[in-house]
């Protein structure tokens, strides 16, 4: 079953690092027609055509699946929400912000107040016009202190109570602290979708290309084309059926047997099997990241030399080869890979065992023994932990890997582990900082609190000039690069599969599958 493949990979690793992940497939991939990987196609299905039902077989959901954009958590949640609702600002496949429901966002000089003008003539699935009232209602609901939505953490600067309507399509958004990156923060898929005044989660309506027909959590949901959709020409499909799959084996079997048209979140070791059976692979350079998190405020990793030593033991290419078959992007211990502020000029950190050893010696920590808390919280996470343990042993570091359940991981000790892992979808640089690397950040898992860094952030977030902001952001990244608590060895690829009858799929950099599950441009031939 599912575990056999994973366990098999683990066993292979424990024995020897020489085994490649691609060659170490489970039962099913052994029956593929070969191990060579063909070129990745984005579409083989000719010209756009209207009609048809797209059947998506998706993993990553659970019986806790929700249609409520305020509390979306899992991949399958996002797949539904991204088709039902729309945000003010969206993300292009290249991970740049683009206006969706908004026509224009304008900040004042010190970024303490934004004016948002929305497009006219957009309707919700119940026929109601989208107006300024809905925008205000959405933000006040998301930021309700008694029941904050999952986006609340990233939008904490907005003073929702004081939001005012200037006219039917214009809203003023005052901020309690400067918030120059509002547009970027709104663009993260599935977090800031607009809901109508009086939104009822039991009968959800949005402005998206598809409206809800049926939903049964953890099992299946059906969406039909919204006839009154505001973008011309799309969607092509009449219907989208999303079925939850427990694991990749049954999901891939369904694709090969022609029972589903698209599948998400595949591992690299099934690529040859899927292609060997005549199906296609959609490969995206995701901007999501699976960091190792070292607590900088206490314990072993309170010593910056030990943190730097840990970063130096990582052979990033080898880790990517073993965990994701070599696909994906090498990381440099910095997040926000596609952000305009990302500093590509910092030298790529390479494995340097001698340097790591001398740092450990200087810190009096030779023969270091640490415990790494891991869990299958995201694709390849536990496998990366095993690889890290192997690589660290080269510098005489013993990493004992403690594989806990997902529930244990996110239970009472979450955000308190001394040395653990996590997974994040793509976010822009400064918005990510506000979530993870400030003393006020809700997910400050490394307990990072650097005075210089904090004041640089305060400066950057009040700067509307993007080139000046980038300059400040580069200095922040230099500090993280030299002292930070994250090891970011790579940005995982996103590997999806689809049938030859599916057209219009494009790779996306958000880290979510199928270009953030954007099905409006997809057709069936």
């Amino acid at each position, binding site marked *: *079953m*599912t575990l*056999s493949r994973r366990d098999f990979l683990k066993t292979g690793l424990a024995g020897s690092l020489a085994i490649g992940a691609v060659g170490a497939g489970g*039962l*099913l991939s052994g*029956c593929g027609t070969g191990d060579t990987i063909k070129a990745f196609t984005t579409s083989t299905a000719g010209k756009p055509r209207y009609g048809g039902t797209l059947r998506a*077989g998706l993993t990553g959901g*659970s*019986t*806790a*699946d*929700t249609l409520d954009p305020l*509390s979306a*958590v*899992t991949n399958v949640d996002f797949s539904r929400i991204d088709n039902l609702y729309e945000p003010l600002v969206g993300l292009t496949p290249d991970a740049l912000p683009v206006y969706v429901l908004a026509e224009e966002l304008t900040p004042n000089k010190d970024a303490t107040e934004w004016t948002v003008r929305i497009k006219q003539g957009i309707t919700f699935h119940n026929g109601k016009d989208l107006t300024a009232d809905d925008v205000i209602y959405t933000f006040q609901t998301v930021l309700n202190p*008694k*029941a*904050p939505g*999952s986006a609340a*953490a990233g939008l904490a600067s907005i003073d929702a109570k004081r939001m005012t309507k200037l006219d039917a399509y214009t809203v003023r958004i005052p901020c309690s602290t400067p918030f120059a990156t509002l547009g970027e923060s709104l663009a993260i898929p599935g977090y800031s979708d607009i809901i109508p005044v009086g939104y009822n989660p039991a009968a959800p309506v949005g402005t998206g290309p598809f409206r809800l027909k*049926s939903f*049964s*959590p*953890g*099992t*299946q949901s*059906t969406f039909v084309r919204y006839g009154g959709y505001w973008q011309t020409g799309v969607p092509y499909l009449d219907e989208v059926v999303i*079925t939850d*799959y*427990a*694991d990749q*084996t*049954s*999901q*891939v*079997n*369904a694709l*090969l*047997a*022609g*029972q589903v048209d698209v599948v998400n979140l595949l591992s690299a070791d099934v690529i040859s099997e899927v292609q060997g*059976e005549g199906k296609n692979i959609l490969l995206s350079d995701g901007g999501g990241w699976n960091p190792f998190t070292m607590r900088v405020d206490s314990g072993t990793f309170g010593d910056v030399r030990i943190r730097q030593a840990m970063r130096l033991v990582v052979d990033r290419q080898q880790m990517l080869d073993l965990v994701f078959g070599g696909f994906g992007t090498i990381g440099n211990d910095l997040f926000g890979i596609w952000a305009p502020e990302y500093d590509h000029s910092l030298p790529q950190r390479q494995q340097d065992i001698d340097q790591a050893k001398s740092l450990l010696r200087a810190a009096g920590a030779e023969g270091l023994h640490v415990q790494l808390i891991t869990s299958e*919280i995201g694709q390849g996470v536990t496998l990366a932990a095993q690889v890290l343990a192997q690589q660290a042993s080269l510098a005489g570091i013993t990493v004992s890997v403690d594989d*806990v*359940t*997902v*529930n*244990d*991981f*996110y*239970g*009472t000790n*979450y*955000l308190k582990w001394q040395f653990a892992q*996590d*997974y*994040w979808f793509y976010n822009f640089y400064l918005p990510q900082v506000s979530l993870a690397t400030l003393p006020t950040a*809700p*997910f400050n898992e490394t307990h990072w609190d650097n005075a210089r860094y904090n004041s640089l952030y305060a400066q950057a977030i009040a700067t509307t000039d993007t080139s000046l902001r980038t300059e400040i952001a580069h200095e922040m990244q230099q500090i993280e690069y030299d002292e930070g608590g994250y090891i970011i060895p790579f940005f995982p690829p996103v590997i999806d599969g689809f049938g030859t009858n599916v057209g219009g799929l494009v790779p996306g950099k958000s880290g979510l599958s199928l270009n953030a599950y954007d099905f409006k441009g997809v057709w069936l031939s």
Partner: protein
Amino acid sequence: MTATEATERVGPPSRAARPHPIRDTVIRRSLIGILTLVLVSILVFAATQVLPGNAASAVLLNTATPARLHALEAQLGLNRPAPAQYWAWLTGVLHGNFGKSLANGQPVGTLVGGRIVNSLVLVVLAGVIGTLIGVGLGVLAAARRDSVFDHVLSVTALAVTALPEFVVAVVLVIFFAAVVFHWFPAVSVFVPGTAPWSNPRELVLPVATLIIVIVPYVFRMMRASMIDALESDYVQMAQLKGVPRWRVLFLHALPNAIAPTIQVIGLSFLYLAGGVVVVEYIFNYPGLGQALVNAVSDRDIPQIQAIVLVLAAFYIFVNILTDVISLAVSPRRRLPRS
């Protein structure tokens, strides 16, 4: 004087006093069964308390800031002491209310109800077909004992016994669905709310997997007890007397050989109730097993309780049923023990 008179009275004992083994068994075992269910529910609840994390952390995952975690725990009532949570659940059940799912707020009765039907269809189809095949092959193999047919069947059965159900399932999928032939669906997905029998093609491979797993057990037991029966005096007598072969097999030997096999068939049904978990998982079949796997990973206590109780009740029911049938087919055992 009255006492001795009563015991010395000749004639059949009064109706109320006459032991009725089947009825007594049913009543006694049902009462024990209910007690067992209560104990099971306590054990399961205790187990969910020991598991790390809770429904709130399972729902929030990496969005679980302490503030959101506490808010959701309070909303789901998870901050109450464990005995109070259990008591609230138990009183609900006694009023016929199995509570709401902690994961999605839907009533557990509705969530589990449809899945019971789905799983029952798998279990009954596989159990009945598997039993018929197993009994039939067992009789044939015993009748042609030591023939090539018998040897091939016996060795095959032994080999299949060694295969876990997920291996059988994966092999079937490779051959009949995903890779070699594309005859049947590789996964059993049907629209929620539709009955499984309206999607017969989706049932083929999961049912076949379960059949393949149980047939060897039934077959081997049937063959062994049939051989015993065929070697008995009354069968040899019947043969000597010139009774036709089929009559000897099916009317003389089979009824006497079936009793031990019924126990194995009962065990097979019990196995099926557990075996569906794995098979449903592989075929993504929307049954109880799949729901249980999900409920455990979501720490959805009301749903875990409901499903485990259904499975436990099925175990108890099948056990009682097997004993009753055994009693019914072996008149000797119905006599009061003295």
